[in-house]
């Protein structure tokens, strides 16, 4: 992958406040031109990670490199990083053009060059001619694009975005997501993007890092995280999931036998259905069945009654009550009407089943 911007390397970088650990030591490599999303609930350390890169926080230990340069203790102003803040942090006393041109003005670029590059940046975010407007005259979506133009006009080595779409309404958010992806594919620039919206992560990213409590739980392409989550937390954070408590009965090099109380069945799974081969016996396990992998099948092994049928347009989501009393969600294309109380049978493909440690 050849891209604009520089690679980013964390070597054991960590942050704590007294005894409070905001970020456990992290080793992380982001390629030049890669779009990496940090996904996690609030307090998971993703904004701390971003602030370490931006230089707004100094790591308590460890090192951080941008390209070949160590920036661990370099002040923010010497890092050449573009940042888009959650609420944009546009300067309220400046016009749109002054905001966008700020990074160039403090670099003491000539006036003509600033004007030319600001105009180009505004044109890029489709705000040509808005230069003289006051920030307060712009809508939320326009402000978001000014913030993006301001971050990009300095040609940053790394672009950081901290929940940049949080303040936009749903429809607009979707449009901007697609726009951001298009822009990234045109001019690949190393980008770190923080969000707690998994859909956003799916749309935008080359790779996703799922974070929790100051650690990266799993990092990889979205499809990998979806198919092979390392634990039930990642499984529930990426995509929809049914998680059922399971117990390992027997295991050899090829297969494992597990008992799932909710299904009133024992299942035989290939060992590849679990993220790791070792130590499963000692930990609480959960069976992962994605709602979209469950199918209605009169010959299926599982009897269920429809408790709830939610019409989602082309899809219908069904909440099914099993004989054991456990609930399962199932998603299917809407074809025939299914109503509450109907008795159905459910089936699935063995290769779609995953066994994950509960966490």
């Amino acid at each position: 992958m050849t891209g604009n911007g520089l690679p980013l390397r964390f070597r054991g970088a960590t942050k704590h406040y007294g005894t409070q650990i905001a970020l456990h030591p992290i080793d992380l490599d982001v390629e030049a031109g890669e779009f990496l999303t940090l996904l996690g609930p609030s307090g998971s350390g993703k904004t701390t990670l971003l602030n370490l890169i931006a230089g707004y926080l100094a790591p308590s230990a460890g090192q951080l490199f941008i390209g070949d340069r160590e920036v661990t203790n370099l002040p923010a102003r010497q890092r050449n990083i573009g940042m888009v803040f959650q609420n944009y942090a546009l300067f309220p006393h400046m016009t749109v053009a002054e905001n966008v041109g700020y990074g160039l003005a403090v670099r003491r670029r000539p006036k003509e060059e600033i004007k030319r590059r600001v105009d180009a940046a505004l044109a890029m975010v489709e705000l040509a001619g808005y230069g003289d407007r006051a920030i307060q005259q712009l809508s939320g979506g326009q402000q978001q694009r000014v913030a993006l133009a301001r971050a990009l006009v300095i040609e940053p080595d790394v672009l950081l975005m901290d929940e940049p779409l949080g303040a936009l309404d749903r429809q607009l958010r979707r449009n901007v997501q697609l726009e951001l992806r298009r822009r990234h594919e045109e001019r690949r620039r190393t980008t770190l993007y923080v969000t707690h919206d998994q859909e956003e992560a799916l749309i935008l990213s080359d790779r996703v890092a799922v974070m929790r409590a100051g650690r990266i739980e799993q990092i990889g392409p979205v499809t990998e995280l979806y198919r092979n989550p390392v634990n039930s937390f990642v499984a529930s954070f990426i995509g929809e999931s049914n998680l059922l408590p399971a117990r390992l009965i027997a295991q050899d090099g090829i297969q494992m036998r597990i008992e799932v109380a909710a299904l009133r069945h024992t299942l035989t799974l290939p060992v590849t259905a679990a993220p790791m081969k070792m130590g499963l016996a000692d930990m609480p396990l959960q069976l992962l069945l994605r709602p979209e992998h469950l199918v209605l099948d009169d010959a299926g092994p599982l009897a269920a009654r429809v408790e709830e049928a939610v019409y989602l347009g082309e899809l219908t989501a069904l909440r099914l009550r099993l004989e054991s009393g456990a609930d399962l969600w199932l998603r299917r294309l809407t074809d025939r009407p299914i109503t509450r109380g109907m008795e159905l049978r459910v089936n699935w493909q063995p290769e779609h089943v995953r066994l994950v440690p509960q966490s």
Partner: protein
Amino acid sequence: MSGQTRQQRKSERQLSGTPIAWRWAAQVGANLVLAFLVLPILAVIPTSFNQASFISLPPTSWSLRWYGNFFADPEWRSSLWVSLQVAVMATAAALALGLPAALGLQRAGALLRPILTGLFLAPMIVPVIISAVAIYRTALDVGLNGTRIGMALSHAALALPFVVINIGVSLRHVDRRWQQAAAGLGAGSWTVFRSITLPNIIPGLVGGGVFAFITSFDEVVVAVFMAGYGAKTLPVKIWESIRLEFTPVVAVAASFMILLAALLFALARLIDARRRQVAGKAAASITTETITDQGVPA
């Protein structure tokens, strides 16, 4: 259309649940309080235009006689001039000390901040007469009694709390992320302060400056102690005159003080309004806010 609006207004009133009679009573009451506060002050102005050589209300016949006397008397003229000089110096000193103090207070830790704030506000809380004696005694040691500099510095000390409070309120409206964003875009800390922080605390600087000026301009207790012959301010001169000869010249001097105070506050509002016009809503109306927060200086 207008009928509909009236209808709406009426229904809003009903929704708010307060009977109209009560609203009227509240309004009348508020106006009475306002009159109680303002009328005695404004009453001075007509008495300054009195022809007679004693203070009476209403004036028996109108004249500018006492204005002429005011400007003909070198002592009155010089006291006005001294007051203006001292107030300008005091304002400059209070701003120069108050701005760094407010910036420092904002960064102080949660433990230290309330203590430091208390210390900075002390001149407002300690009775002025005590400050006056303390300042007088200290000034004797360094030979600043009876000098304009000495007077200006004492007034700066009294005015400092108002500056620190006004700028402090302004600073609370400055988003830390603006400063972070500017630093991230390559600005050093001085550039961040000059281009981001300072423009956004102008309302606080103006408000604090106006308060400092007025504090100095109408201060009499410390001034009586510190005046001597070299630095007799207008309030001191008024004080002396009242004790010797109670003529409407005193009312003229008082009218000047009222006029100046009114002009300054009007100016502060104007600057604020212009800023808001330019920068829109975000630059909050901090001047008025701090005035209502803190009341008028005693």
